[in-house]
C-alpha cells in the first residue's frame, strides 16, 4: 500500500529519547529509530510493554524531548512545535483520564477550536462543528454534549477524544493503544469507527498497540520494536505471512489460539526482557533469541532489505520458507 510517489507525511530520523533513571543515569527508551509514514497510510507499531512504543509516539508530537535525531513533517522540520500539533493529533490509551473531569463534552470537543480558532474546523460556527464531529464519531450531540467525562463509558469517552482531535481537521492521528483499555465488544466498534473516519477525513495514522490481531486488522504496514530498537518493518500481509525476525515470530507464536499459525512450543521464548537501563550489547534480543551467536553479542545488526518494503534488523533472519502454517514441526 505504500505509494512511493507520495512524499512521506512524517519522517523520523535516527531518534534517540532517554529519561533520567536516578543517580545521574539515563535510560534510553528509544535508541536510534528511523521510520517514514506516507500520507494516507496506517502504520502499526507493536512491541511489548516498555519497549518504547509510547515514547516514540510522544516524541513525534514533541511531548518528550528527543536527545538526538529529528522529526520531519511533509519534508521539513517544523521548528515551532505548536504548528506540528495543529496538524498531528494524539489519542491516548486511557480515554476517561485524558478528558478534563471539570469540563463538559461539548467544551472538551471545542477545545481545539478555542486554541486554533473556529476556522480550523472548516465551515460553520463553533457549535455546528462540535455537532458535526460528534455525529461523525457516532455520538448524539443532544444526549452527550452536556455530560461530564465521568458520565461516559470507556467507549464513549474514546469517541469524545476522537471528536476532539478531529474538530480541527488534522492530517494525522497518533493513537497510543487506543483500544487496549476497552471491552472486547467495544474494541470492534472503535476499530470500525477509525477505519471510517480515516476514509472520511483522509487521515494518516500511527497506530500503537501490543495486540497483533488488532494491528493486523487496521494497518497497511507494521513496525515491530524491541527494547528501543526497530526489529522489522513490512507491509502487513508480508509481515504476517513471511516474518523474518526471530522476535516477530516469537510474538506471533505467543498469541493465544495460534491464529497466525506459527509452530507452537518450538518458538516459545524464555526469560523476560532485560532492563532498558542496562541493555545487552550487540543485538538487544540476543538474551532471549534461540539463534543468537557470538556475532549477535558483538555487533548490533543493521536493518537490511529482504523484500519490497520489508526491512529486518537481524544477523540470522529466519528462512521465509519455514512456513507459518507448518504446524507439523
Amino acid at each position, binding site marked *: 500500500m505504500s505509494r512511493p510517489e507520495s512524499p512521506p507525511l512524517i519522517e523520523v530520523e535516527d531518534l534517540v529519547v532517554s529519561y533520567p533513571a536516578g543517580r545521574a543515569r539515563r535510560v534510553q527508551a528509544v535508541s536510534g529509530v528511523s521510520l517514514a509514514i506516507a500520507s494516507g497510510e496506517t502504520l502499526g507499531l507493536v512491541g511489548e510493554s516498555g519497549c518504547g512504543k509510547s515514547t516514540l509516539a510522544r516524541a513525534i508530537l514533541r511531548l518528550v524531548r528527543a536527545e538526538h535525531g529529528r522529526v520531519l513533517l511533509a519534508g521539513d522540520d517544523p521548528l515551532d512545535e505548536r504548528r506540528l500539533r495543529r496538524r498531528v493529533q494524539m489519542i491516548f490509551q486511557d480515554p476517561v483520564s485524558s478528558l478534563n473531569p471539570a469540563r463538559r463534552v461539548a467544551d472538551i470537543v471545542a477545545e481545539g477550536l478555542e486554541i486554533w480558532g473556529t476556522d480550523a474546523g472548516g465551515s460553520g460556527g463553533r457549535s455546528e462543528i462540535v455537532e458535526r464531529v460528534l455525529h461523525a464519531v457516532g455520538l448524539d450531540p443532544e444526549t452527550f454534549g452536556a455530560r461530564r467525562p465521568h458520565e461516559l463509558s470507556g467507549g464513549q469517552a474514546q469517541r469524545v477524544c476522537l471528536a476532539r482531535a478531529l474538530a480541527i481537521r488534522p492530517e494525522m492521528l497518533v493513537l497510543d493503544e487506543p483500544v487496549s483499555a476497552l471491552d472486547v465488544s467495544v474494541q470492534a466498534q472503535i476499530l470500525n469507527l477509525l477505519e471510517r473516519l480515516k476514509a472520511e477525513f483522509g487521515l494518516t495514522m500511527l497506530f500503537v498497540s501490543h495486540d497483533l490481531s488488532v494491528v493486523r486488522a487496521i494497518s497497511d504496514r507494521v513496525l515491530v520494536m524491541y527494547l528501543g530498537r526497530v526489529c522489522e518493518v513490512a507491509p502487513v500481509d508480508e509481515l504476517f505471512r513471511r516474518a523474518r525476525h526471530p522476535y516477530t515470530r516469537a510474538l506471533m507464536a*505467543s498469541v493465544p*489460539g495460534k491464529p497466525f499459525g506459527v509452530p507452537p512450543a518450538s518458538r516459545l521464548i524464555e526469560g523476560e526482557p532485560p532492563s532498558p537501563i542496562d541493555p545487552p550489547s550487540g543485538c538487544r534480543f540476543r538474551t532471549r533469541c534461540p539463534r543468537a551467536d557470538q556475532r549477535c553479542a558483538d555487533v548490533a545488526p543493521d536493518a537490511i532489505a529482504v523484500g519490497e518494503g520489508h526491512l529486518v534488523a537481524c544477523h540470522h533472519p529466519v528462512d521465509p520458507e519455514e512456513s507459518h502454517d507448518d504446524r507439523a514441526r
Partner: protein
Amino acid sequence: MPGSDRSRRFPWLAWAGAAWIALLVITALLAPVLPLRDPSAKGIRTGEVGRFESPGWNAWFGGARQGEDQLARVVAGIRPALVLGLVVTLLGALLGGVLGVAAGYLRGRLDRLAVGFIDAALAFPVLVLVIAARAAFGASLVVIIAIFTAASIAPYARLVRGATLTLAERDFVVAARAMGATRRRILWRELAPNLALPLFSFACLGFAVVILTEGGLSFLGLSVHELTWGQLIAEGAGEIRHHPHVALIPATVMFLTVMAFNLVGDGLGQLGGRRRPVTVQRQRTGPPSPDAPGPLPAPLSIRNLSTVLHTATGDVMAVDDVSLEVAAAEVVGLVGESGSGKTMILRSIVGAFPVADVSRNGSVEVDGVDVLRGRAEDVQRTLGTAVGMISQNPLTALNPVRRIEHQLTEPMTVHGGLTRAAARRRALELLDQVGLTDGARRLRSYPHELSGGMRQRVTIAVALANHPSLLLADEPTTALDVTIQEQIVTLLARLQDERTMAMVFVTHDLALLGEIADTICVVYGGQIVERAPAAELFRHPRHRYTVALLASRPDPAAPSHTPLAVIPGHPPVPRPDDRGCRFAPRCPAATAQCREERPPEVVDGTHHVRCWHPRGDDEPA
C-alpha cells in the same frame, strides 16, 4: 438499607457546619440593630448586669467581672474572628496558590526557589514574627492579619504545588499539550478548575486554624486590642473554679465555629476525593437456599449464588443466580467483559469484596465445607488450606513492604501447621517448581525487586503453598506481555496437571481459554449465560452473546481492513430489579418476551444456555 446513608453522612454534617457559619454571619451583620447591650458597658455601674451574673433571662450568656454582658461581647467577637479568618484565608490562598501553581507547573529555577522559600517559612516560628511585628507596629487587627497571611502562604503554596505536579502528569493535561494548547491556557482551563476544590477545602480548614491560633495568642496576651473570643476565654480562665460560665460559653462558641469550618472543609474534600472507601467486609447472608447440596464433595460446588454489592450509587447485582460444579482436576474457564461479574464470582467464593457492604445468597461449598455460612474458623481453615488464589495484577498482589519469605511462608505456618524452618524449606521447593531460580535470594527480596513475570510466579507459589485442591486464577496473565503470558499459562497448565488440582481460570480472552480450559462459562451481566465443553462452545455457540463475541474478534484469515462484526452498545451494570434478559438491548434476536421475562436455562447434555431463542446449529455463526 444499611450503608445507603453512608455516602450522605459528610454532606449532612457539613451542612450543619455551614448553617452555623451562616448564623454567625447574619448575627454579626445584624448586630447594630439587634437589641443587645453595649459590650463595653460595665453592668455593675449601670446596674443592668451583676458581677459574674449567671446566665439567665436577663443576660443570656451571663455577666463578666465588671458586669459586662457576655452575650454582647461574644457577638462583638464574631466580627474580628470572621474578618481575620476571611482576609487571611483569601490572601493566603491567593498568594500561596499563585506561587504553588507557578512553581509546580513552570518548574525549573522558580520551583527550586519556591521550595527553598517554603522550607524556610515552614521552619520559621510564627511566634517570633508575631511578637516582633506587634512590638514594631502595634497590636492592631491589620498587623495580625498581615502576619497570619505571611505565615499561611507557605502551607498553601506547598499544597497547590503538590497538586499541580500530579495534575500536570495526568493524561488530560498531556492531551491538551498535544492539542497545541499554550501554557497559559493549560494553566487556566485545565489546571485551575481542578485545583479549585482542594484549595477551597484546604482554605476552610485553614480558616479554622486561624481562629484557633488567634485564641492561643490571646491566651498568651499577644493578640490584638480588639475584643476577641480568645480574650474573653483568657479573661474567664482565672474564674473557672467559681464562675465557669465566663470562660466556657465563649469557649463553646469558638469551638463550634472552628468545628463548623473543619466540617465544611472536610465535606468539600470528600466531594473532590475520588477514592472509594473499601474495606474488610461485613457480610450478610440470606437463608439457606431451598436446593439441598448434592452428595458429591466436589472441590467446588456453587448453587444459586447471588451476590449484591450495596454501593453509594445503588445496589449492583454482581452475581446473579450462578450455579457451577467443578470436579477434581477439571479446568473451568470464566470469560466475559469487564464488569460482567467474573471476578465477583471468585470473590464470592473466598468472601473478599471491594466494597464494605455485601449480601450473598445461595450456597458455596469447598471440599464439602459451606464457606458462606460455616463458622469463621472452619471457613478460614478451608480457605487457607483447600483454596489458592491468584489475582490479575502481579504488581499489587504482593504486599510491597514484606519480604517474599514472609508472604510465602505465612499460609504454611498459619494454616499448614509447619514450623518456620520447615516452611522455609517448602518455600524453596515451591519457588523451584514455579520456575524461579536462585530461590534463597528470592526469598530475601521485596516484591519491587522482581519483574512482573517473576512476581506472578511468586503469587502462584503462594497460592500453591498448602497443596490446595482448588486454584482460583483471576486473569493471571492480563497484565503481562504476550511472551510472558504464554510462559505463565504453560506453567499453570503443568502445575494443575501434576497436582490434579481443580482450577477456575478467569479471563476476557476466549482464545486463551481454548488453550487451557476443559469447560467454558460465558459470563454476562452477572450470570453464566452459557456453559459448555471448550471445543463444543467454539464449534456450536448457542447464546447470542457468545456468538457475537466470537465474531467481533479480528479474523486472522480475513484480509486487513475488513470491517469487524460489532456488538452495538456497551455492557450493562446489572441491578437486582432488572427484568428479562440483560443482553436484550444489544441482541439481534431479541423479542418482547426477552425484554420482559427472565430467560430459562436450557440444558442439552453438557451444554447449558440461558436464552429464549438460542442459535440453532444450522444458523450461520
